[in-house]
């Protein structure tokens, strides 16, 4: 009998091409996702060395980071010259090297981490990489997925492999049920709050437990998406019926006999009884509240019912970091989080730009208006999410409430396109990073779930979404 293995061990073992004596491995990469910001230098490197893309059929590219999301983009060229050069470079590189490509004009275009799963490129048991840290998203399928730098992008393009050493195994278990108003976003933020942004460094996390099992694929993607914010290399969730159901019938999912063969293998992808984890973190589902971030690190997270903390309540280097964060965010220690006024709301990103996220926000917004003077936008994660939301009538709910209804892209998640906060503006955002300047120079970001973002748009301040939920929703 072989020793019991974790899910991570199993996927790793299935992809080792070569192992050196010191444990450094050459790992085969099943899917390589590419976007315009971190790839130009890699393609340039290939050209300079006279190399080809080894597996163009396993390489998928889509521009997302700096494309405009305003409706006029369909008609014209990108106004910002540098952005245009990057998108043009991707167009050209995709064509020259013969890789799969979804240009801006394609309805399937969107954020790379939304497009991959949507098109069935991401499948259980795969290794998936992308020159983007939120590649962890794909771990929701039980795929080993992580971000890489541009040198590694070039390495994967040229060799379809990565030089890797194995990480340690961490188990994050969320037991029991979630309370009403608590979502996948709250889970993932609560975990980071508990472990810290460096808590996962050196680990691959496997999320498990009833509360995780109960999540849809959209919710699982939200959880894994932010594994990187906890410092982990990747997050994983074992595939199950929910996963197979989601994958089945997608354009690039296996069909017929291959589907059966794939399914047989996928069903072996779970952590064996008694397998070793180097670290275990357990949270009770019912203890998790709707949360918000108050500071400039995703670990600066508190239940919405709490107050802005006193920096002196921290220890070590965190005291100064908290002081700096509170000053940057323009807050006062002891202030109630629900008293923080908001002027901008952003719903979108690879964390919360999927159909279920839009449904959750629309549910709160139905028949309501956003606060006077509020700037609020919804940026669907892909053209297909956008189309579906229009079909379901969600777009109308957003528009009637006063939201701008945008085209797909990363948008204000990192504000490389024109969607940015101005100095001092304060945003309730469904994205994943609240770093200084992330959404615009001196902009202030509070990370929240889509439902909480919708609630803040209505009231004009950070709000406990449960106060806006109808009896049936809270029952």
């Amino acid at each position, binding site marked *: 009998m072989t020793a019991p293995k974790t899910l991570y061990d199993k996927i790793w073992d299935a992809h080792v*091409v*070569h192992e*050196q004596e*010191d444990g450094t491995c*050459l790992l*085969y990469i*099943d899917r390589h996702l590419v976007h315009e*910001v*971190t790839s*130009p*230098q890699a393609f*340039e490197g290939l050209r300079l060395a006279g*190399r080809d893309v*080894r597996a163009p059929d*396993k390489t998928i590219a889509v521009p997302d*980071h*700096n494309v405009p999301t305003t409706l006029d983009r369909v008609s014209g060229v990108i106004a*910002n010259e*540098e952005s245009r*050069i*990057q998108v043009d*470079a991707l167009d050209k590189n995709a064509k020259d090297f013969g890789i799969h490509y979804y240009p801006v004009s394609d309805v399937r275009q969107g954020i790379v981490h939304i497009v991959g799963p949507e098109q069935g490129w991401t*499948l259980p*048991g*795969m290794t998936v990489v992308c020159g983007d*840290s939120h590649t962890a998203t794909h771990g929701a399928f039980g795929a080993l997925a*992580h971000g890489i*730098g*541009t*040198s*590694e992008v*070039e*390495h994967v393009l*040229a*060799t*379809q*492999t990565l*030089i890797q050493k194995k990480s340690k195994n961490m188990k994050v278990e969320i037991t029991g049920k979630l309370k009403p108003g608590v979502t996948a976003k709250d889970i993932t933020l609560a975990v980071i709050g508990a472990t810290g*942004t*460096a808590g996962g*460094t050196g680990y691959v996390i496997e999320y498990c437990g009833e509360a995780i099992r109960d999540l849809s694929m959209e919710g699982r993607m939200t959880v894994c998406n932010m594994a990187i914010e906890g*410092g982990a*290399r990747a997050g994983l969730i074992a595939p199950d019926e929910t996963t197979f159901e989601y994958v089945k019938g997608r354009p690039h999912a*296996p069909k017929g006999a*291959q*589907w059966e*063969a*794939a399914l047989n293998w996928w069903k072996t992808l779970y952590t064996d009884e008694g397998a070793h984890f180097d670290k275990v973190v357990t949270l009770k589902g019912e203890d998790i509240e709707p949360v918000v971030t108050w500071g400039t*690190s995703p670990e600066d997270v508190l239940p919405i019912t709490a107050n802005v903390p006193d920096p002196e309540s921290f220890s070590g*280097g*965190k005291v*100064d*970091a908290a002081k700096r964060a509170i000053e940057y965010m323009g807050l006062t220690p002891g202030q109630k989080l629900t008293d923080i006024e908001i002027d901008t709301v952003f719903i979108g990103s690879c964390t919360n730009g999927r159909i279920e996220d839009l449904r959750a926000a629309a549910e709160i917004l139905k028949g309501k208006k956003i606060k006077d003077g509020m700037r609020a936008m919804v940026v669907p994660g892909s053209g297909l999410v956008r189309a579906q939301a229009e079909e379901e009538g969600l777009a109308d709910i957003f528009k009637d409430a006063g939201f701008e209804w945008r085209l797909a892209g990363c948008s204000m998640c990192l504000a*490389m396109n024109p969607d940015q906060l101005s100095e001092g503006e304060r945003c309730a955002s469904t994205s994943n*990073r609240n*770093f*200084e*300047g*992330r959404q615009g*120079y001196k902009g202030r970001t509070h990370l929240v779930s889509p439902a909480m973002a919708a609630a803040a748009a209505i009231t004009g301040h950070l709000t406990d979404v449960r106060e806006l939920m109808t009896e049936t929703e809270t029952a």
Partner: protein
Amino acid sequence: MEKFEKLTGVAAPMPLVNIDTDMIIPKVFLKTIKRSGLGVNLFDEMRYDRQGNEIPGFVLNKPQYRNAEILVAGDNFGCGSSREHAPWAIADFGIKCVISTSFADIFYNNCFKNGILPIVMPQEVVDVLMEDAEKGSNARMTVDLENQVVTTSDGQEFPFEVDAFKKHCLLEGLDDIGLTMNNVKDIDAFESKLAQERPWV
């Protein structure tokens, strides 16, 4: 890639924790399609005001640290985005070694691909090195990769750990792709096996 062997230079202290890659190189500079020229924008938002004037209090603007080649930083350095523009900017500025109690994973790996040595030291040691760095340009620290030792300006020695393979590549200035190409037969074999066992990939 440039070799890294032994370095003696000025170390700049940045005790702040969780210095993320957005701080190291803000996103407005990611729109380049080149690797070079990012050094002037290293730590841009901390280093310059909105008019582009230097902020005198920022460490790399102080005369004694303008030519720093080593950075001693707070915990969890390089967290956030995977942008390799961060190590490109650091290297372009002239910094060849970063010392902290921990680094974010992707950033750590990216350093080695760009001839930068990231060194993880326990808190007590980082405290000593931070103090040494505070002394400014009269204090020159030495980083010896071959022997895996950091020496402070007053001669205190601290050994450090580094992955043997990564060390080898840095010492020799080896290019990863070239190395992997030596294993191309293994990749071919793996792909044939994959086509049999998991044809849907």
